[in-house]
């Protein structure tokens, strides 16, 4: 994730939405941020929600209710926005609505849904549902839930009690308002993945002395002819055989098998200005045909003469060596099968945070309730992850402090107990944190090794018993780690476990050294005894004032891509740095499960 905009070094990696096996070069890249900032999230699933209700109130004297369901989404800022309506079912207390609502499942945010049921009066029965004014109808009840609550249930159905809400203008309803049942289905397009291996032949060198370091960019073409990049291959360096590693495309990313795709071949240039060698325009169906016939397709180079766009056909041909379609189990399939994400948190209690009683300390508890940096990080990550943990018991540790009557501990239980480390719910973490601040004295140095080793112990214990838990450790720290080699050793040992580590840096320190731990920016981690990490389990992000950083980021990324993409509608809203971290988790989970061939049955 760093600030580097040029596509050098680790930027030579392949990126695409679906990772089928652990690759050293992860998807964190300028391109990925660019795409997700514009709402093109790589790995999101489309969910179709269907609705029914039981026991609705009887508001009409002469007949049964004619219920209509309206769906709202509540954003992070609290703004409620209507996103859909069902049809009106006549004369029913237990309606099953046919109209479904489709929405994208975004792992990294809490998607709060609000459902309101209205009874549509007879004069409005012939009016189109979209035109109905809701304040002219009779409100029957409302229910709220998070989308992740629905998808984590094994039946994918959630039953909610309808409550009067704030619109109980008349007498308090003594009877219950009924129940709403919401059912979620994942659209099948999300699960079909195509593995393609491309090869080029007869590569024409631009100049006699240029090296060719080719890479491919696959884009889909949207309505107004604009290509949106969805996938990028790795850069081939110094290999005369121009065959790239497998590229995985999700049918849903692409749209459909017939959607036109543009496959462009560029020559990598470390200054960021990659030369276009040539391109082809094919859909997935065409690529499948190329594969079965074994023929190649000539690349063309677009040239313009006057008002006409002519394409110069090149000698180089693109071949499709492999074309494999498979239905892969998605993240949601694993959730439905009972797989869980277990959240764990470790908080830095070193003296560099400052005296907690003083307002300039990072640990200062504001009496007005405004959360400090540590609380914000716990809330932002915990709020999303809590739904994926069935028992809501989270291990919580502190490090770098001296508990009363004790030596400095680099992994003490936040709840003050010496036997068990878990607390109940996010609230439990907050309360244990605040009481720990009163009971320990901040010390140092900043060591991650013991906390990581403890988390790894929990993960390996779970692994020995069952495969159904994946652990996420959040480490919040204000300083640079002191035991870099020991931390690396602990990380390498833990790299084969079902564990992901998110490190959030708070405060104003220079976290440059911490980025070494995030293998996206450099080499794979190596321990002191020669073992290398099997996968990259660490992600690091500084929790700063994200607005100004994002602005610089957009500008630098835009400059880099101005020759690839002409315009792009700004679809998505702002994303926080922590959300981008969380967005990676389903991919890390899937990569771990798929390489070990652990499937939901």
């Amino acid at each position: 994730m760093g600030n580097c905009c040029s596509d050098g070094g680790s930027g030579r990696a392949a990126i695409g939405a679906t990772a089928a096996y652990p690759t050293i070069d992860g998807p964190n890249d300028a391109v990925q941020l660019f795409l997700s900032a514009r709402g093109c999230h790589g790995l999101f699933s489309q969910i179709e929600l269907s609705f029914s209700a039981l026991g609705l109130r009887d508001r009409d004297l002469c007949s049964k209710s004619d219920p209509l369901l309206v769906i709202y989404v509540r954003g992070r800022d609290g703004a409620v926005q209507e996103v859909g309506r069902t049809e009106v079912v006549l004369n029913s207390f237990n309606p099953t609505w046919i109209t479904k609502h489709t929405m994208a499942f975004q792992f990294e945010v809490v998607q709060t849904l609000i459902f309101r049921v209205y009874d549509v009066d007879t004069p409005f029965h012939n009016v189109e549902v979209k035109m109905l004014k809701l304040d002219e109808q009779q409100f029957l009840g409302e229910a709220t839930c998070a989308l992740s609550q629905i998808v984590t249930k094994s039946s994918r159905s959630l039953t909610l009690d309808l409550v009067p809400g704030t619109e109980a203008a008349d007498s308090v309803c003594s009877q219950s308002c009924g129940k709403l049942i919401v059912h979620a289905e994942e659209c099948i397009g999300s699960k079909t993945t195509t593995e393609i291996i491309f090869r080029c032949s007869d590569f024409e060198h631009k100049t006699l002395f240029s090296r060719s370091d080719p890479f491919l960019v696959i884009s889909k073409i949207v309505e107004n002819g604009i290509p949106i990049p969805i996938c990028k291959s790795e850069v081939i360096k110094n290999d005369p055989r121009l065959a790239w590693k497998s590229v995985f495309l999700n049918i849903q990313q692409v749209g459909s098998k017939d959607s036109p795709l543009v496959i462009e071949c560029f020559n990598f240039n470390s200054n960021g200005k990659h030369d276009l060698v040539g391109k082809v325009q094919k859909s997935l169906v065409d690529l499948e045909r190329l594969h079965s016939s074994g023929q190649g397709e000539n690349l063309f180079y677009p040239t313009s003469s006057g008002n006409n766009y002519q394409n110069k056909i090149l000698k180089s041909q693109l071949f499709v060596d492999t074309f494999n379609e498979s239905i892969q189990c998605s993240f949601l399939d694993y959730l439905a099968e009972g797989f869980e994400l277990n959240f764990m948190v470790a908080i830095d209690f070193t003296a560099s945070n400052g005296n907690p009683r003083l307002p300039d300390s990072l640990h200062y508890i504001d009496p007005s309730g405004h959360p400090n940096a540590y609380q914000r990080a716990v809330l932002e990550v915990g709020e999303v992850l809590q739904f994926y943990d069935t028992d809501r018991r989270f291990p919580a540790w502190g490090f770098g402090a001296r508990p009363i009557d004790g030596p400095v501990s680099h992994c003490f239980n936040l709840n003050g107990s010496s036997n068990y480390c878990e607390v109940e719910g996010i609230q439990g973490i907050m309360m244990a944190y605040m009481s720990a601040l009163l009971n320990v004295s901040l010390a140092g140095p900043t060591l991650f090794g013991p906390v990581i080793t403890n988390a790894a112990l929990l993960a390996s214990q779970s692994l020995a018993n069952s495969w159904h838990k994946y652990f996420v450790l959040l480490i919040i720290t204000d300083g640079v780690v002191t035991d870099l080699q020991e931390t690396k050793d602990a990380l390498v040992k833990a790299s084969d476990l079902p564990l992901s580590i998110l490190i959030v840096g708070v405060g104003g320190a220079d976290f440059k050294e911490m980025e070494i731990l995030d293998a996206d920016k450099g080499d794979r981690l190596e321990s002191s005894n020669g073992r290398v990490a099997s996968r990259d389990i660490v992600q690091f992000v500084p929790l700063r004032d994200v607005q100004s950083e994002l602005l610089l980021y957009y500008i630098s990324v835009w400059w880099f891509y101005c020759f690839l993409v002409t315009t792009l509608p700004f679809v998505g809203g702002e994303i926080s740095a922590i959300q981008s971290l969380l967005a990676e988790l389903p991919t890390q989970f899937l990569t771990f499960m798929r390489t070990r061939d652990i499937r939901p049955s």
Partner: protein
Amino acid sequence: MQSVEITVISCENLRVGKKPVKKNAFVTARADSPDQCCQTKMSVEGGSNPTWNDKLALDLPAGLRNGFITLEVHCRTSSGNKLVGGVNVPVSDLLGGFMPINHLQFLSYRLWDSKGDRNGIVNISTRVKSPQPYRCSQALQPKAIGVPVGEQKRIGGVVTGVPTVWLGHRYPY
């Protein structure tokens, strides 16, 4: 007698002399005695990042619990087999911790050439098949670890356990 199945998946960044390996790399594995040596297929076109996905089975005599399995990467050239690099994989890495029998482990190791320089990485997956239960070496690890107050400086970056000349050396762990 325990047996272990090692799947040699791939290698990265192999070099012979100063140049990247072009082709014909293969891996041998042996546990303790030279007559128990296994070998993967040749990777004809893999270049400096060859892939094999080849399974090798080795028997581990009981005394080898603290010993090593030696993996060596060779390259067949016109002048014979050249040793590209190798590593001593501690058997405790394969058996350690809470891993149940038949559990698939993915491990990666740094390769060292005959001069003691770094020369690439080897990626393997291992599965221990054993009729007898083994002792969990980390069963009694304490949860809270305290260290004395004061800076812990690592002077000179002395790294333990990295062999300077790996051939034929045994390192006690």
